[in-house]
């Protein structure tokens, strides 16, 4: 069971849940599992080809999955996964 931390802008698609326990062995499967449980999340996380969107970063622990094995990055039961989308506010 890995823990996925949902960022505040996406929590409205997860019934306002900030942390979700997801059973999966890789990042790819974690995201898949996540979008099965919360279908509205899908268009925010994946593009039309099913790839993780380029304005969404996923970190395993403190590391960017692009520096690990991308979607194939393995996930352990104690892994903490953070989803970090781009935000642009400075509220000028």
């Amino acid at each position, binding site marked *: 069971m890995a823990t996925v*931390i949902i*960022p*505040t*802008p996406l929590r409205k698609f997860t019934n306002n849940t*900030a942390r979700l326990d997801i059973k999966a062995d890789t990042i790819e499967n974690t995201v898949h599992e996540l979008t099965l449980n919360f279908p509205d999340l899908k*268009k*925010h996380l994946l593009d039309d080809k099913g790839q993780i*969107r*380029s*304005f969404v*970063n996923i*970190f395993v622990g*403190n*590391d*960017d999955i*692009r*520096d690990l094995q991308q979607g194939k990055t393995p996930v352990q039961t104690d892994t903490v996964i*953070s989803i*970090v*989308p*781009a*935000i*642009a*506010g*400075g*509220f*000028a």
Partner: protein
Amino acid sequence: MSNHSNITFSKEELARYNRHIIIPEFGLEAQQKLKAAKVLIVGSGGLGSPALLYLAAAGVGTIGIVDFDVVDDSNLQRQILFGVEAVGTPKVEAAKARLQALNPHIHIILHNTQLTSKNALDILKDYDLVADGTDNFPTRYLVNDAAVLLGKPNIYASIFQFEGQVSVFNYTNKDGVVGPNYRDLYPTPPPPGLVPSCAEGGVLGVLPGIIGSLQALEVIKVITGVGEPLVGRFYMFDALNFESRTFNISRREDNPLNGKNPTITALIDYEQFCGMKAVEKPVKEISARDLYDWQVKGEAFQLVDVREQDEYDFVNIGAELIPLGTVAANADKFSRDVKVVVHCKMGGRSAKAIRELEEKFGFTNLYNLKGGILGYIDEVRPELSKY
């Protein structure tokens, strides 16, 4: 960084900066570096307010401010640079008056203009570093690209609702190694419409205070060389859970600015890059004045408000509430027999609702209220509260 070796201080300045100078790791030399430094702050809003106040107080010798906006009542909840008396005046001028009163020993340079691809390089080139506190993706990429093209550090901070992000981009360390920039982190922006805008999203007022102060901290560290700046790292603060995380980030070979095969060698059209210029099907519109005429004449029409419940509770004009996210599920509640006027706060969400209903359900009788409820209040019902 600007040369600091012949910087001197008056007696008043030495007294003012005493608590800096007596820190062993900081000392007189760091204070000299601050006085010699030229920092450009882009945006004097929620993030810019605390950053400017702390940088001015700390004695950054030259501070440039870019902003084209005018102080509005709705700014005062978080933009602590401004008081009630500043409402209606250009932000840069109000900011200068406040900062100069705080510290008369520094120079403030005003750029009362919107930063664009045409003027960005010219404005940035005279500064040692830039701090980005803007509120939209096109300007984020513009500031980033300009900073990278000019080889200047970009101290980045961004906020949304309860979440804040900070990083130091394009920083060259002592060994000449350049750190990652915004395009390494986020190669492309989200398409318009996927991420809620400021008007829809909102922000807790104290959050920019926290994040803008962290931004000022990193500006000071980069100028003085004291400590380890947030380079190759990306800080995130979640105010709701009081959790902060610092992630490692790195440069990417496919970065179009300074990766292996750079393709961007000059500033581009950032509105287009961010998809803002995508041609959207125009929707039919009605002005607040015409809507009022319909109401007075008793014309048959349906009025629908697609804002959220809490916005509706704060102020409404008697419309039926169907929030944007539930429009498709409630398509049968929209009349097909009479004209339907759809409104939101300013007209953006209602246009989205109309496009969705036209595309998915074939409606042809929908009208967008120009300027939304705010426009209606201005034109017709000035006694109602605005937000």
